[in-house]
């Protein structure tokens, strides 16, 4: 066991090298059930390469389960998942990660006792594993690999402004900083398909606003496809090229933000009867009023204040 992975692995693993750039994801008639409950009930969805797709819906509508199924944490009862047309069903989570699929978690717990530095090194470990034996004996290529990994994370630590937290244990960081560490590890992982589960959960409204340009930049830099679950509706409408609305495990509406905004089914399912819900408050109000919106679908500038209202209105309203 100790020497199970001998030899230098300085290059990328075989299957990673085969494809680069943003990936396309097809979800076909996906069903995931927990006991008698069908958390995802025949959802179909295409995520075009290079797009940012926002998944919205009430609590319990199956969004996170859908992400779990895509990243392989739960296995679907039926249906297919295709990454660039290749069936994913035989891949366990680790292997899907090697295919360039990167997942962030809602709780963003990361690894409480690892330092920020080690957390980032870990991403590099996954991309460029070095055998235990060569590590133990500190063979030249193991040393070189470790040096190169360190160089890579130094760059990311610098560009994300994490230098002062470098040696802090993740458990001691604020949620916001942990999210930044999470994003930094995403950049390191160089994903082709990025699955984000409520990236702004648990952080203050003002910090959430700062996430919009950050996520856009992330999208550009990593040249990836993003599938995003989010309760912060204004953020989704601002950021995403396609918005998908889920209800009780099914996709009830999908389209550009403008289409979805007008779709009566989407309104009934999640957005509420009037479009007041869209304008409850929102990150758009103060910050993006001045900025041109990506898809021209800027929400009406709402009366400022009531920070944090949108996510609680979004989730609380539908929470039965």
């Amino acid at each position, binding site marked *: 066991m100790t020497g199970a992975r001998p030899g230098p692995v300085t290059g990328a693993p075989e299957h990673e090298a085969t494809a680069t750039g943003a990936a396309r994801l097809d979800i076909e008639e996906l069903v995931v059930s927990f006991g008698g409950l069908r958390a995802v009930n025949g959802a179909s969805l295409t995520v075009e390469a290079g797009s940012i797709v926002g998944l919205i819906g009430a609590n319990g509508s199956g969004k996170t389960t859908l992400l779990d199924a895509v990243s392989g944490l739960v296995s679907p009862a039926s249906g297919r998942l295709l990454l660039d047309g290749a069936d994913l069903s035989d891949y366990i989570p680790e292997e899907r990660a090697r295919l360039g699929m990167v997942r962030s978690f809602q709780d963003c717990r990361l690894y409480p006792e690892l330092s920020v530095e080690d957390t980032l090194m870990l991403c590099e*470990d996954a991309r460029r594993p070095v055998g235990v034996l060569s590590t133990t004996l500190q063979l030249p290529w193991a040393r070189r690999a470790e040096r190169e990994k360190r160089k890579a994370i130094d760059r990311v630590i610098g560009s994300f402004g994490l230098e002062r937290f470098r040696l802090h244990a993740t458990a001691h960081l604020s949620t916001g900083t942990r999210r930044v560490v999470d994003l930094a590890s995403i950049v390191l992982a160089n994903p082709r398909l990025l699955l984000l589960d409520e990236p702004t959960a648990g952080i203050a409204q003002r910090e959430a606003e700062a996430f919009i340009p950050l996520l856009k930049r992330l999208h550009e830099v990593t040249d990836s496809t993003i599938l995003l679950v989010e309760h912060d509706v204004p953020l989704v409408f601002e950021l995403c090229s396609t918005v998908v609305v889920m209800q009780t495990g099914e996709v009830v509406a999908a389209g550009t933000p403008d289409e979805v905004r007008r779709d009566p089914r989407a309104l009934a399912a999640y957005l509420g009867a009037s479009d007041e819900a869209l304008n409850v408050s929102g990150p758009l109000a103060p910050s993006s009023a001045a900025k041109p919106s990506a898809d021209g679908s800027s929400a009406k500038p709402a009366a400022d204040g009531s920070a944090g209202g949108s996510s609680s209105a979004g989730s609380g309203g539908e929470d039965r």
Partner: protein
Amino acid sequence: MLGVSLPPSVVLEGAILGLDYGLLAVGLVLIYRTSRVVNFAQGQIGVVAAVFLVKLYYDFGFNYWVALVISVALAAAVGALSELVLRRLFNRPRVMVMVATIGLSQVLFLFTVFPFIRPKKLYRAFPVPISWTFHVGTFLFSPGEVLTLIVAPVVVIALAAFIRFSSWGLAMRAMAENAESARLSGVWVRRTSTVAWTLAGALSAVTAVLASPSQTSALTEVLSPDLLLLALLAALIGGMVSLPVAFMAGIGVGVVFDLLQWNITNPSTGPATVELILFVLLLGALLLRAASLQKGTRVGERSSWAMGTAAFRTTGTALRKTVGRSGVGITLLVVGLLPFVIGVGHSFLMSQICIFGIIALSLTVLTGWSGQVSLGQFGFVAVGADIASHVGSGIPLVLLLPVAGIATALVSVLVGLTALRIRGLYLAVSTLGFALFMQESVLATPCWTVPLIHRQICSGLPNPESTLISRPSLFGLNLSSEQAFAWFSLGVLVVSVLMVRVWRDRGIARRLIAVRDNEIAAGAAGIPVVRTKLLAFALSGFMAGYAGVCLAFATERFSTDTFSPTFSILVVSMVVIGGLDSIPGALLGAVYLEGLPAIFGSTPTVEFLTSGAGLLAFILYLPGGMAQLLHQFGDLVTAGVENLRGRRRGVPPGDSTEAPSENPADPGRRSPAGAGALTMADP
């Protein structure tokens, strides 16, 4: 094997034995439900009461019933007191609390030696209030057994009624489900927990009073790992929640155990076979139960077995690092010169400490980093020693060490396979079972015949009572003198430390810790979870394996008792008091627990310090272990050196010190996205 017979008298005898296991198991469950603690002192509390009862009855001439009430009350008070002492640990890593209860049981053992509690004559028939006997076939059941048969069920039914119908019982049940919610809805969590421990103390007294008549003295070896293992097995079958299931399982375990002993009578291989069957039953029960136990709301328990001690990194200034390095250098120099000064006996002790240091390090890797609690590390050590006893004279030592290491690593991975399904407490118990199985089955059977192909395999110690092996030479150097072997052990230890340091700093430890801390995220990030868990077992087994070879050559003459699971528990204690994931901590723990008693003899003071009391004090007041102490000492020295330098230069002391990054708390409201995020460089 012979045909199986089920005589009713044996079944009944087993059931009576099982009633004791059942009572013990009920006590374990009672405490576990309310405070999530596996109380290794559960048996010992009762022993104190039983000893005191003998004292009252014979020495003071008390009436039996009065003596009984007083001693049960004493045990209840001890139970309550234990809870008060241990309470502050309830939120700490589970393995720490477990070791604390081991310490507690050792303190309680010292209690029984106090003249106030210890009776003048210990080996006397334990008093029994009735003289009824009866026959089943030709088998006579003694008054003590009759008493057990009457009292045990009554006690359990009374307890069940209390939990079912009283408000305390309701509170306990609520806490078992969800302590947080129970607390929020007004259950007085602390007081309820105290009540549970009090009850468990009284229950323990009843257990000991019932079990003692069949023993030769009141000092029942209740802590002996195999007895505790059987009670734990019963408790685990009850899922550590259900009192009735635990009780019935206890009876079942007793019956099965007695029937096995009755049916397997071959004097040479009998005990080994019984142990083998028990181990298989234990694993089966654990694997079956584990699946149903680790679902749903109780998932949270898993994480509470994780460590919770942040790793010590030398994050300080260059000067701090120099101080650390000089400390290591001086220590190494002193220890290296020691064999010149100390005698033969102490050189032998030095080898022992070095070897225990290696074993403790192997546990640092497995428990400290990977979070897998092993109570059976000496099972792996035994594998290494066994290999040495067979091929030790055949291959050169430099080859033997890694070969034994790799072989043990393979065994370790096999044990680790169970850890993929069971973890935390369940893993701890199954590794304890493995260590017992190694000692009493594998090592104790010199040769056995494979059933189907009828070939003899000699895998055990050539002579289980006393195996003799002679020390080999190392590159022509004679290791037969104790001094030479002390240097050799030190050398192996130094190499081990260097190896573990590489693992810690160059990428192995961070993988293990990541999988421990957040398995799902690690998997999603592309770290192979299963392989990483098994890797921890392999690395740890590798170290334990070659440590076993060293131990075998160090002692030269050894028996199966050299690998008693008691030592496994000792090693866990070393790692815990040393500091769970710290390399110097493991070594300090080995020196403290192995060295102090031997150097200063077993004077009462040393015994008090190194046994339970010291252990408890360390765990209660020094959560980071001795490593924390060492770290602080290093800081102190650094400050002193800086002070000196400053004074020489005429700078007021303190000015030259940089503000250390002691405060890890995130300084609040800084926009996380920062300015840097927007200038993010292309990767």
